[in-house]
């Protein structure tokens, strides 16, 4: 009996483990380092190919035991390696100074790659053992992974990440018990293994609790005497920690005017994954306590016109909602993505927040910001996007890898479309030096206004700044002299500086908060003038507006600047480096190096590289280069398509989490079905035909989708979420079905022509998948996701052309 159930369970657990590790390390470290660590750990898949090519004979001789042992080792190491990794004091911020840090990082890679290595070895072994059923086994692998991707999302709704880890480890061990049944090993063994599965659940809870880096925001706040976590909630959207600090108040009011006489009232801090703090203000119905909200740069729009209907995007703990209430707004729509955040204000801390989210004037919507606006029938007097990320994370360029559809040109167009006549869009960001966010937003707004057919954007924009924050206003109409006077008064009363308004004289800039030069004013003038293009080209950071096809607002990196910054590293220059992008490049470089090593290693050790004469001798045989190229291309192309389409569908489903879960699961499940279907081509020896058919199908579909998805999405935007999910699945199904066929058919073909290359193909494919994920992001940053799709289709085409002929 082929062990398809244990393979499916193992794959489900391995994929769940991968996603869970990302969550855990985003809590312990920072997102982008988590990304690097887990990407590299996935090379464990590639390493299994190397290992199998060296040891498959011996392992196959003891197949049932070897297979069960590897499955078991996955389960045990998933837990053990995580526990060991927690003991490694890796501190990303010290990498440049501390010679030990790279070694810590390497140990993390190695430790975390072990579970993936065992999982892949088990699956690879099974594929080798049951060659005639490769497509069926591969289908079980994909179907399991698809279920795993949905399963982990569901699990994270009910279990904290550390409990989820125990459950996955237990699942891995159970898979071993299942495997021993499937392979008819003694019942006693199966029972023993099933008993062992309880082990992870019996460990003390403190062992698996994530230990945060002491430099994360939450750890820092907890250093204050009296500060403590009073509540925690978990979901796939993040771990929310509510912190009270009764002795020394939190006092969160970024950008508060120097002239403000009072600060915020008592606050509770709410951290997401140990960072990105938002606050809940104690509200006892006394509006005077919230006077501080009028002393922030984000209060500007309320001084230009009386808003009746306001939309707050990213409402979080409710500061912007309070700000609107303070300014007597009649109706506030507050949009927040995370339902647990809303629950904090509605249930757990309802009294503390003065039932803010149940106020008559406030209507709360649990929704993704942009999707909400796109689907809204209302027109607003003010749309306020004021949620700030944490400064240190924003300043370090740590979000560079995060796709964000909130700040793209198309997003701003959508917001502008939903403004009432003379309505305002207000966006507040941190002031960084040299300026980055605020200027990129300004450039984005100029582009959005132009695309929306407003020939004179300079009439519709204003930008002001405090010493810490900047607020950009975009108006649906031209700013009037009265409004400009109100802006000047607002700034003067708070020691803020105007950076741009229509007709602003240079002397007005840079008075209260002085920069070496009036950078903001100069940049705004340049971005509105004829030399905008030259300005963007010359500026030392990337300020080119993000678009839906290249949704990397937070990426400010420019290669031209790296050398200069590195020269300045001893002189306080390192903070200028935009880390996120560099981490991506460094990850790719390391993955490339390790992949090469992993692929070459078995060949060097065993001298298995076939000589040219050997290859030529059998004309029918498949040359190693051709096999190498085929599996490399498939490994790259599969994930290119998957990643690019996840991004395309995020824009349709508008909820990043649902989009990722639905698209990923649909891809894996339908690819699994495709793989199963392909068995008939393998059985009849017509693998080449199967490959050609599948690739032709997916190329046609890919091209059609590329052209039609945009218009189709705009047409279907207003449908309810469930209908959109159904449409998503329907659209992905045929594409994924085709994508599931080339890999098992390639293996099957290889088995009939050059079986000794099989483990090697498995390894190459594993390495390529790791490279692919990193490369896809890098390509999308530079060329956009459409290019990633085109490239993937070209890779599939080339692979089919080179390999399909062979049969």
């Amino acid at each position, binding site marked *: 009996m082929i062990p398809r159930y244990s393979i499916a369970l193992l794959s489900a657990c391995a994929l769940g483990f991968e996603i869970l590790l990302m969550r855990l390390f985003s809590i312990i470290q920072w997102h982008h380092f988590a990304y690097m660590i887990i990407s590299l750990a996935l090379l464990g898949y590639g390493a299994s190919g190397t290992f199998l090519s060296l040891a498959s004979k011996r392992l196959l001789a003891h197949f049932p035991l070897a297979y069960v042992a590897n499955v078991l080792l996955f389960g045990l190491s998933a837990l053990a390696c995580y526990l060991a990794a927690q003991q490694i004091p890796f*501190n990303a*911020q*010290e990498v440049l*100074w501390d010679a030990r840090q790279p070694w810590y990082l390497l140990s993390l890679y190695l430790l975390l790659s072990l579970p993936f290595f065992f999982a892949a070895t088990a699956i690879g072994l099974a594929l080798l053992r049951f060659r005639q059923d490769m497509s069926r086994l591969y289908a079980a692998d994909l179907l399991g992974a698809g279920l795993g991707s949905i399963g982990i999302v569901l699990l994270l709704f009910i279990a904290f990440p550390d409990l989820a880890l125990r459950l996955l480890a237990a699942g891995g061990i159970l898979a071993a018990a299942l495997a021993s049944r499937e392979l008819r090993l003694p019942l006693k063994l199966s029972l023993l293994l099933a008993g062992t599965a309880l082990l992870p659940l019996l460990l003390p809870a403190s062992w698996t609790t994530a230990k945060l880096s*002491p*430099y994360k925001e939450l750890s*820092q706040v907890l*250093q*204050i*005497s009296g500060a403590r976590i009073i509540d925690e909630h978990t979901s796939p959207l993040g771990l929310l920690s509510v912190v009270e600090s009764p*002795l*020394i*108040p939190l*006092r*969160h*009011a*970024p*950008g*508060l005017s*120097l*002239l*403000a006489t*009072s*600060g915020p009232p008592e606050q509770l801090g709410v951290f997401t994954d140990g960072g990105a703090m938002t606050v809940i203000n104690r509200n006892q119905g006394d509006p005077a306590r919230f006077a501080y909200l009028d002393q922030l740069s984000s209060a500007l729009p309320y001084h230009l016109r009386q808003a009746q209907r306001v939309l707050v995007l990213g409402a979080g703990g409710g500061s912007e909602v309070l700000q609107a209430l303070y300014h007597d707004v009649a109706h506030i729509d507050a949009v927040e993505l995370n339902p647990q955040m809303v629950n904090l204000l509605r249930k757990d801390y309802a009294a503390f927040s003065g039932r803010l989210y149940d106020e008559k004037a406030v209507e709360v919507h649990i929704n993704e910001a942009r999707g909400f606006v796109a689907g809204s029938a209302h027109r607003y007097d003010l749309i306020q996007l004021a949620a700030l990320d944490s*400064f*240190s994370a924003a*300043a*370090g360029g740590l979000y560079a890898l995060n796709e964000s559809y909130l700040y793209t040109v198309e997003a701003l167009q959508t917001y502008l479309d939903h403004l009432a006549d003379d309505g305002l869009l207000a966006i507040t960001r941190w*002031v*960084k*030096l*040299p300026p980055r966010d605020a200027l990129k937003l300004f450039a984005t707004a100029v582009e959005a206004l132009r695309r929306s057919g407003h020939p004179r954007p300079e009439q519709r924009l204003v930008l002001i700044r405090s*010493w*810490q924050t900047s607020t950009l206003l975009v108006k649906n109409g031209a700013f009037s002299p009265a409004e400009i006077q109100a802006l000047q008064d607002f700034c003067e009363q708070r*020691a803020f500086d105007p950076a741009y308004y229509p007709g602003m004289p240079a002397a007005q800039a840079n*008075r*209260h*908060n*002085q*920069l*070496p*030069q009036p*950078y903001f004013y*100069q940049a705004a003038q*340049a971005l509105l003038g004829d*030399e905008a293009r*030259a*300005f963007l080209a*010359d*500026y*030392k*950071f990337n300020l080119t507006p993000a678009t839906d096809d290249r949704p990397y607002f937070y990426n400010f990196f420019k290669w031209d600047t790296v050398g200069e*910054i590195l020269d*300045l590293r*001893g*002189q*306080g*220059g*390192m*903070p200028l480096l935009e880390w996120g992008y560099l981490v991506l490049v460094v990850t790719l470089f390391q993955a490339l190096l390790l992949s090469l090593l992993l692929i070459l290693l078995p060949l060097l050790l065993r001298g298995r590289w076939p000589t040219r004469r050997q290859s030529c001798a059998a004309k029918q045989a498949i040359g190693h280069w051709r096999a190498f190229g085929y599996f490399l291309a498939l490994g790259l192309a599969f994930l290119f398509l998957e990643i690019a389409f996840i991004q395309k569908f995020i824009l349709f489903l508008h909820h990043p989490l649902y989009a990722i879960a639905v698209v990923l699961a649909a891809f894996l499940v339908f690819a699994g079905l495709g793989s199963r279907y392909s068995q008939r081509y393998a059985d009849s020896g017509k693998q080449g035909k199967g490959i050609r058919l599948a690739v032709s199908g997916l190329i046609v579909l890919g091209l059609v989708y590329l052209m039609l998805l945009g218009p189709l999405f705009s047409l279907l935007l207003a449908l309810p979420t469930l209908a959109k999910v159904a449409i998503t699945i329907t659209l992905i199904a045929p594409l994924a079905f085709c994508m599931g066929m080339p890999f098992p058919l390639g293996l099957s073909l290889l088995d009939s022509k050059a079986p000794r290359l099989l483990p090697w193909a498995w390894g190459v494919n594993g390495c390529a998948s790791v490279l692919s994920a990193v490369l896809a992001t890098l390509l999308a940053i530079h060329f956009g996701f459409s290019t990633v799709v085109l490239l993937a289709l070209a890779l599939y085409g080339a692979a089919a052309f080179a390999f399909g002929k062979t049969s």
Partner: protein
Amino acid sequence: MMLIRLTLIFLLALATGTATHAADTYRQARQSMVQAIEANVRQTSLYLDREALDPRVMAAMATVPRHEFVPRSHRKHAYKNRPLPIGHGQTISQPYIVAIMTDLIKPKPHHRILEVGTGSGYQAAILAELVDQVYSIEIIKPLAESAKTRLAGLGYDNARVRLGDGYYGWEERAPFDAIVVTAAASYIPPPLLKQLKPGGRMIIPVGSRFMVQQLVVVEKDLKGKFTTRQILPVRFVPLTGKH
């Protein structure tokens, strides 16, 4: 007995020799740290608006034994131009940044200076070399206690440390000629602005624990009006000469 005595004398001499040797090594290391800072400042001069830092500041940097302010395990790196962790999620800043921050507040011998966020006490010690009175507030108890002991042990009697919430400043000792706020602040506390003398300066490093992104200098003019200056402690302009 004689033999024991001789041995003791020998061991004592050896120990003293080692101690002298260590002190020399540290002095040399400190000297090269100061030279490195001077070289960096020369390169950055245009942007800091000065050719060199105040010689008194540099003298203080050359005097304060930085190795006493870092954990034993990091002593060998004490004079490297890098920040170091001191426990409790806190750090001792890069010497280059400490020198620039100190210079920017223009300390004079008769000054009374407030520091918010004592940390290891290194910045307080530098200030204590330069001015009459240094008052420093630390929010984390173990750090406050160890800094207090350390500064006293090194003879910095003019530096006083207390445990508490820096937000309210040190009312009894106000006003101050300068205020150094090294603890992260979401906004500048109004009490601190009040406790700053007219003509005084406040400096706030902004960024993460290991990397100072920018320095914010708050100036209170003689009429009590505030301006801030944002300074990048680095020779770097965002635009090329064309614009």
